[in-house]
């Protein structure tokens, strides 16, 4: 703070300083279904919840996911083992894995 230096982090902080009840947003969900390594699987990403933290992408053991324009996206569902790690570690209720 004293001698200001340029500290620019690449995070996208949540803008909603209002925790006031919000108008019920329509959820914008991107669904990808297909056959994974352990059978049929559906992965939902709630686009307007995803904050692009990359946790799911990084911790998915099978590289099923990738970031696209700061939103998580399924890039290869066929490798998914339904291990659920992405869902468990997503801090934002933004990704779910179903049969």
């Amino acid at each position, binding site marked *: *703070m004293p001698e200001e230096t340029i*500290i620019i*982090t*690449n*995070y*996208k*902080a*949540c803008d*909603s*300083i209002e*925790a006031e*009840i*919000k*108008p*019920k947003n329509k959820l914008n969900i991107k669904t990808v279904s297909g056959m994974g390594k*352990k059978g049929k699987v559906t992965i939902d990403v709630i686009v*307007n*919840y995803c*904050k*692009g*933290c*990359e*946790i799911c992408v*990084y*911790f998915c053991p099978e590289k099923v996911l990738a970031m696209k324009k700061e939103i998580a996206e399924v890039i290869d569902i066929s490798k998914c083992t*339904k*291990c*659920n790690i992405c*869902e*468990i*570690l*997503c*801090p*934002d*209720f933004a990704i*779910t*894995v*179903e*049969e």
Partner: protein
Amino acid sequence: MIKTKFDYNKYLRQNTLPHIWCPGCGDGIILKSLIRAIDKLQIKKDDIVIASGIGCASRLPGYVDFNTIHTTHGRALTFAIGIKMFKPRLKVITISGDGDALAIGGNHFIHAARRNIDITLIVFNNYTYGMTGGQYSPTQPIGSYATTTPYGNIEPPFDVCDLAKAAGATWVARSTSYHALQLDKLIEAAITHQGFSVLDVITNCHISYGRRNKMKSPVEMITYQKEKGIPVRSAENLKPEELTGRFKTGLIYQKNDAPEFCAEYQKKLELLKTK
């Protein structure tokens, strides 16, 4: 470990989402774990009180559909004790940041532990004052940086678990936001335990802590948790020097036969009645 889809919605105040936490903040991961644990226990939503102090972590209660109290900084446990003593049938869970629970709230922490009152305290331990922008906290490691330790921290951190135990807590454990499934079980056990239970959860704040300490991203921070956490059992086989910089996870201490405060109080009341 395939799981069917878990429905969080039942427990969420959905119109408050997305939550206020930064992208990748570990608090969201813990929130989900808490919901899963409560669901597992099948406690009625009406019977749960969640009290928190002030801080990022303490914003949690706003998102869950229980009886929720966002109190003042450091004082969540005092409200929790009040309502628990008055209505012992309620399950009371307290959420605090490390600053909230152990800096300004340290006294209530040790006294709740001493009384061994049946409340569960979950400390969201991100080594920093997240909400106020990253000043050092009483759990921040020596040598690390914060907005108020520009030359490196020289204050030794508390071991939350040791302190809880010495003060009288009868159930003490540690986990991390990375170890989310272990966390589910520990939260479940903490809530089930009859007495004061303290769960120290190491969580990631890259914004206020990480980026000043060479962990700019949530991923780096969670990787740190993964690498530094070591299960209590495994730790037993390691030499002290192998443990430096690491922390134990899992159940650290449990005592089942200690009198619980609400129960003792009720006993007194019964005694007076018969008199």
